[in-house]
Every structure is written in structure tokens, then in C-alpha cells.
């Protein structure tokens, strides 16, 4: 295994170097860096040209310039651009922005995409499945800049306008309720009657909820309140326990419910801490939550149920934490909204310039700026995760060992979670790794649409000025990500599949 990793690493380095040569030779030829200087009048022309020539080593052959660049890069110096600015500094800002943009989008796309794919496979050929398939194909076929611009126009501008007077029209309520009902009815299995009941119940619940939210003008000053938080935590406990081990037994459910209870109590106890925390506090709390939940599961599960109780409790604990986090965010919404002139969804840039606020308010600021580009990116990559997961799951569901699992008398839930999911997701890990590698380089168009000054600007100014340094910096990060994640994909694949691991 170690030999495999070392060999793979060695190959990756050579591949990356070869690619960098190709890019460098293209980048130096992309445009004449002296073209602007040539326009200058008189003696200024000569000195400007000399200065740029000196700075960019234009008097050296390309191959020499490449090695000069490579030598610098190996010491961690990315050089200076045509104007003499430090490329390291430029890259740092650009990379941070891009990373901020793609991280949330990628995680969201993976989680949601795989979930939809799994559900769609489990409900093959239902209306839900066919709708998902159709929507996925539309998502594949959307140009990101087109849909991004439309999102800006309709979602951001219109949503912000709507927030001024947040009443939901009855037609809209009816439509959403109808869609919710249809989705629930197609997810639930059973005869016509059960499905009708679930359709009616979920549609009615959604309609009531929206009507109440609209009547109370909830959207101007949103929040969940302790009651809804507690209710969600309990629902989470039941949901996760069902998912992990089913509800036949009491103990895992009890452990999860206890965790939820502890979480709600902690919400009150930690009130002063949560007023204006920092990122570290939140991270620490998340770790603490997981540890405490695991402890509860371990203790209350005992010998017999530990295996089911620990994951149920941990998932419930983290979920409760997330609900409390959301609640806090929402509580700060009216303040934030007022501070940005009632237009919380932004269409340009990564943050409101010079914005100062509490942890929650700057969180909302980031959220407001990330919402649209994230949505655009998610729409695009969601589809491929959904399709792949579905195909992979269906393939696994036809395998003989799944039939064996059923023949053992396992419940359908156990068959799906322990055999179908586990095996079906193995090829997805590879896909995810490839995709993460490619997404840094692929986000440049989205950045452009939403006016983010990020990796894309590096590339475009580099091309504009015929300046290889920013282009190479762009390549170092995006190409490097592709190479590294391709390598990780191969290694991860070897780890999760014992057939490869041992050979």
C-alpha cells in the first residue's frame, strides 16, 4: 500500500511538472506584454519597455524564463506581475475568496445530490424519480452564467423587494403545499390510501405553516424559539434513530432523545456564550457536542445496543446543535437586514465592504453574498451527483449479495443502509474527489457572473496583460488541486475497496 502511494505521488509530480511546462509556454505567448508600453510617447516608451523587459525577463528565451519561475516557485516565491506587484499576495486573496465560494457549494451539492440520488433509486420509476431525472437533465444543460444572471434578476432583486412586505400570496401557498404533498406522497411507500393521506397531511401542514408565517410577518423578524427548537431536536432524534437502527428497540431511541434534551438545556445554559461567539468557540462546541452525545450513547446503549445508540445520539446531538445555530442566525436577521438597507441577498462581491457586526451578523453577511453563487454552483453539480448515485445504487441493488442480505431476513432498511448504500457509494467517493479537484478551476465563470474578485480575476488579468506569473499562479492552485485530488481519489478507492487494498 505504501509503495502504491509513493509511486502514485511520484507520477503525480511528473505529470504536474509536464503540465506546468505546457501552460507556461502558452502563457508567455498569449499576448504581447509590451503592447501598452509601445503606445507611450517618446522617452517614456523606452524606459517603460526596458523596465517591463527587465522585470519579466523578456530578453531571455522562454525555457530559461520557465526555469527561473520554477526555481522561484520551489522556494515559495510566485514572482511579481507586470506592474511589479507580489503575486503571492494576489493569490492569497483570490484563493481565499474562491475557497469560500466553492466549499459550501461543494459540500451542499454532495450531501443533497447523493441524498436525492439514493431516494430516487429507492423509488425507481415513481413520479418522484422521473421528475428528479428530468430536472437533473435540465441542470446538466444550463449554462452557469445564464442561470446565474437569471438568479440575480429574479431571486435576489425580487426576493429583497418582497422582504419589504413579506406576505405570501394564497396562490403561492397553494402551489408550494401541492408540491410538498406530491413529494411526500411519492417518497412514502404503501397503498393508494396511505399515499393519499400523506399527501393531504403534508400539503395541509405546509399550507398552514406558510399561512401562519405570512400572517405573523415572520420573515421580517424570523426565529424559531425554544419550542420549535425542542420539537425539531426530538424529531431529529426519532428520525436519526430510525435511519440508524429502526425503532424496534427502546434504548437507542432513548439515548437519542436524551441527547436532544441535553442539547435544548445547553441552549439556555450557554446563552451568554452564544451572544457573540467566535469561530473557534463554535467549532469547540461542535466537538464537545459530538463527544457528549457519544458518551450518552455509549452509556445508555450498554453492551447490546451500543452500536446503534452511539451513532443515533451523535447525529441527533449535531443536528440539535445545527438547529440552535440556525435559530441564533435567524434571531439576528432583522438587525442585519436593517443595516444593509433591507436588501440581505447580495448580487455582487464576497462581502459588504467595511461591514462590522457580531459573529452572527457577519455570518449573515457572508450568507447573503454566498447564497446566489452557491445556488448556481449547486444546481450545476447537484445533477451529476444525483445521476451517479442513482445509477450506482441501482446497479448494486441488482447484485446477488443484496438478494443474500434479504434472504437472511434483514429489514429493508438494513439491506439498504448496510449493503446497498455502502457498496453503492464507493464509486461515488472517486467521483467526488475528481470533482473537488476540478471545481476550483471551474468556478471562474461563476465568480465572473457574481463579481467576485477571486481566482478568475487572476487568470483574466494575466491573459489580458500577457503576463505568465498570475496565470501560473492560477494553474498552480487549480491544476494542483486536480492532480492532488485525482491522486487522493485513487488512494481512497484503494482504501475503501478491500479487493484493491489487499492486492
Amino acid at each position: 500500500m505504501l509503495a502504491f502511494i509513493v509511486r502514485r505521488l511520484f507520477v503525480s509530480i511528473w505529470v504536474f511538472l509536464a503540465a506546468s511546462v505546457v501552460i507556461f509556454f502558452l502563457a508567455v505567448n498569449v499576448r504581447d506584454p509590451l503592447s501598452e508600453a509601445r503606445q507611450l510617447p517618446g522617452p517614456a516608451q523606452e524606459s517603460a519597455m526596458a523596465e517591463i523587459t527587465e522585470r519579466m525577463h523578456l530578453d531571455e528565451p522562454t525555457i530559461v524564463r520557465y526555469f527561473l519561475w520554477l526555481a522561484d516557485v520551489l522556494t515559495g516565491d510566485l514572482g511579481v506581475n507586470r506592474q511589479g506587484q507580489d503575486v503571492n499576495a494576489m493569490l492569497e486573496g483570490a484563493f481565499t475568496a474562491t475557497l469560500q465560494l466553492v466549499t459550501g457549494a461543494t459540500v451542499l451539492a454532495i450531501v443533497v445530490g447523493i441524498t436525492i440520488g439514493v431516494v430516487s433509486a429507492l423509488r425507481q420509476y415513481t413520479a418522484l424519480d422521473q421528475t428528479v431525472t428530468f430536472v437533473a437533465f435540465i441542470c446538466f444543460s444550463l449554462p452557469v452564467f445564464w442561470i446565474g444572471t437569471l438568479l440575480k434578476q429574479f431571486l435576489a432583486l425580487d426576493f429583497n423587494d418582497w422582504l419589504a412586505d413579506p406576505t405570501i400570496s394564497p396562490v403561492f401557498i397553494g402551489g408550494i403545499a401541492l408540491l410538498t404533498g406530491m413529494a411526500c406522497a411519492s417518497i412514502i411507500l404503501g397503498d393508494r390510501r396511505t399515499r393519499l393521506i400523506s399527501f393531504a397531511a403534508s400539503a395541509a401542514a405546509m399550507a398552514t405553516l406558510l399561512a401562519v408565517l405570512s400572517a405573523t410577518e415572520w420573515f421580517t423578524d424570523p426565529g424559531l424559539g425554544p419550542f420549535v427548537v425542542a420539537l425539531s431536536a426530538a424529531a431529529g432524534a426519532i428520525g436519526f434513530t430510525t435511519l440508524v437502527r429502526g425503532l424496534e428497540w427502546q434504548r437507542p431511541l432513548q439515548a437519542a432523545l436524551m441527547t436532544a434534551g441535553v442539547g435544548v438545556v445547553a441552549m439556555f445554559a450557554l446563552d451568554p456564550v452564544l451572544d457573540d461567539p467566535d469561530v473557534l468557540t463554535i467549532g469547540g462546541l461542535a466537538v464537545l457536542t459530538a463527544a457528549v452525545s457519544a458518551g450518552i450513547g455509549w452509556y445508555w446503549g450498554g453492551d447490546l445496543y451500543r452500536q446503534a445508540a452511539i451513532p443515533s445520539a451523535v447525529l441527533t446531538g449535531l443536528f440539535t446543535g445545527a438547529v440552535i445555530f440556525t435559530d441564533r442566525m435567524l434571531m439576528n436577521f432583522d438587525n442585519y437586514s436593517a443595516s444593509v438597507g433591507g436588501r440581505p441577498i447580495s448580487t455582487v462581491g464576497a462581502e459588504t465592504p467595511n461591514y462590522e457586526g457580531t459573529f452572527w451578523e457577519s455570518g449573515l453577511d457572508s450568507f447573503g453574498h454566498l447564497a446566489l453563487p452557491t445556488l448556481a454552483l449547486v444546481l450545476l453539480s447537484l445533477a451529476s451527483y444525483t445521476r451517479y448515485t442513482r445509477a450506482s445504487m441501482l446497479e448494486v441493488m441488482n447484485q446477488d449479495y443484496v438478494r443474500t442480505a434479504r434472504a437472511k431476513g434483514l429489514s429493508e432498511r438494513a439491506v439498504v443502509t448496510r449493503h446497498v448504500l455502502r457498496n453503492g457509494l464507493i464509486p461515488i467517493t472517486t467521483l467526488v474527489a475528481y470533482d473537488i479537484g476540478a471545481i476550483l478551476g471551474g468556478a471562474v465563470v461563476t465568480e465572473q457572473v457574481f463579481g467576485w474578485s477571486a481566482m478568475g480575476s487572476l487568470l483574466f488579468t494575466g491573459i489580458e496583460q500577457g503576463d505568465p506569473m498570475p496565470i501560473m499562479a492560477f494553474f498552480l492552485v487549480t491544476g494542483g488541486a486536480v492532480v492532488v485530488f485525482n491522486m487522493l481519489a485513487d488512494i481512497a478507492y484503494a482504501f475503501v475497496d478491500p479487493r484493491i487494498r489487499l492486492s
Partner: protein
Amino acid sequence: MSLPPATPSVPSPSSPLDAAVTDAADEVHTARTLADSSPPTDEEILTVENLTVEFPTDDGLVKAVRGVDYTLHAREVLGIVGESGSGKSVSSMAVMGLLPKNARVRGSIRYRGQDLLTLRPREQRSLRGRKIAMVFQDPMTSLNPVRSVGDQLAEAVLAHQLVPRKKALERAREMLELVGIPQAGKRLRAYPHEFSGGMRQRVMIAMAIINDPDIIIADEPTTALDVTVQAQILEKLLEVKDTVNAAILLITHDLGVIAGMAHRTLVMYAGKPVEIGATDQVFYEPRMPYTAGLLGSIPSLEGERDARLRPIVGTPPSLIHLPPGCPFSPRCPLASDICREDEPAVTDTGDGHHAACHHSDKLAEAADATAFFKEGR
């Protein structure tokens, strides 16, 4: 539930671990035959009546099983023989409740008086793997490749019994020993691809008996294996049957497998039973030309050296458009007009021997029933 004592049947050879070698080497003791095994009782544990299974398809309704009746007694081995498409596998999958959702199943399958087809899914599941277990055809694909063997065995225990995982793994180890896998404790952590085909089929048998079932359905358990390993697996099946006091439903297309293994034999053709009786009766006094044809197509070491095989010409009928009358009539050397118009019912031909043929008396008169079929070229 009382677990039977696990008796390690084979002293574990210390080395080599190489599975292929142990496959061949570990069965040096005298071969076990049906005669040594505990005899069947009169208790009927599984009664299948007028079972039909149909699949709707684009091309029409596939009538995979068209009315099957049989009874399985406690500790009995009942062989079911037929070609691909005869409905033998589909009918046993119906017993397991593992048919695809679009299958239309009618009739009754009674396990100790309970009709499995009317049970709720949860009750059906609780019988599956606990009272009725199954050994599948292809051990290479029937085990999950990314989970350890011990894990998969323990899972079968945990699906039905509330015991700590450690206990379940201990039970799994005992079962592996019982089916003759050396160093069972160590092998629990191994993955399926580290086992040879024969060893994997032993794992499948261990999995089938781990909950002490009443019925083991073995669907072509040796078809995917090397000839040298086949006999060992069959013997192992007979051995564990006695250990757990189960009955076996042995499904195969290979008459050779049935010969030394089954108390009674049921022959199926085009979704229907065409002959049923004690295995000896079916083999030595076939009363249905199809059975005779099957017997004639087995190569034999005995008899005349230049004896040719007598294959059955033609192919099995389409299950969507069955010919009128007896479905075997287009291929039958004895077929007459009545055969092409009227499908014969299963009738008693004496001594508990039943057959569905208008001309079973002709077969009874013949000295060699296989002689009706022409010799192959």
C-alpha cells in the same frame, strides 16, 4: 432458541492456508451418503399448492410457474429438476418471498400451517433466514465483497436474535468450523475474495444454518463450482442437515446431483411439475418422456462403450405463447394428437409415483425408456 452443539467436523490443517488446497484435501474421511443421514419423518413442514407466478412484460405475460404442488417433510431432501426456464428457481424464490415486486403470485405456500403468501412483510421476514434459509447458486457474487465474512455471518444472527455482537461472531466462528473452514476464528476477518469458490459456498452454507432453520433451499448450490469441489459441498449439505435437523429443497438442472442426494425428486417442465416420486422411481422407472429424455442425455461410464448420447431435440417453449396441449409435445417422440390438444394432468402411476403424461403406460412397458429418443450424431 436453542442452538445445536457445534461439532468441528474436520481437524484444522495447520498449513498451508491456501484455500484451494484445503478444498481438495480436507474431505479425506469416508463420503457421507443419503443413507447415513437421518430419515425423513411424516411431518409436513412445507406444503405448496397450486402455486402460480407470472411476470408482466412488454412482450406479454410470462407464465413462469403454472401450478406447482408439492410437500416437504421434516428432514427430507426433495430434489427439483428442470431446465432453465422450467420455473424451478422462481417457485423457490416464491417460497423465500424474494420475487421482484412486479411478480404476480397466486396459490398457497404453507409453512407449518401458516400461509406465507398472506403473512405481513414483517412476519415473512422473521421466518426468512431463521426458519427458511437459502444457499444460492453463485458463491462468487452472493457475498458482499466489501464486508468481512464474519460481519456478514453475524449479521444473519443479529437480524433475528437479540444478542451482543460478540456472541453473534462466536456463533459465526462455530458455524465456519462446522462447515469445515480451517482457522475459523482468523477467517472471520477475511473478505470474500480471499476465499476460493468452494470455501465461499461453505460460508454460504454456514450462513444458511446459523439460525438453525427447518428448511434449507439450495438453488443449484454446485453449478458454479469445480467438479472436484461439487461432491464435497453436497456432502457438507447433508451433514449440516443432520446437525440442525433441517429439510432440504435441492434445486438443480443436473440429474447427477439429485441421484445420491434426494429422497424424492420432482421434475419440472415449462412451469409445471411433470413427474414426482421417490428418486429411485424417477430414475429407474420414468413415467414421463421428458424425464426419460433427461436421463438419456447423461453420459455414462457404464454400458456399451460406443453408446451414443440421446439428446432431447428442440428448445423449451416460450412461456408467453405456450403451445396448446402438453408443452413438451413439440419435442416428444411419443407425442400423438391428444398430446397436442389436451395438457395431461398429474396422475398417480402407483407407489406414490406421479406423472403428467398421456402415454406413461408406454414408458412403463418399454425396457429402456430412453430408447424413444434418437441417438445424437
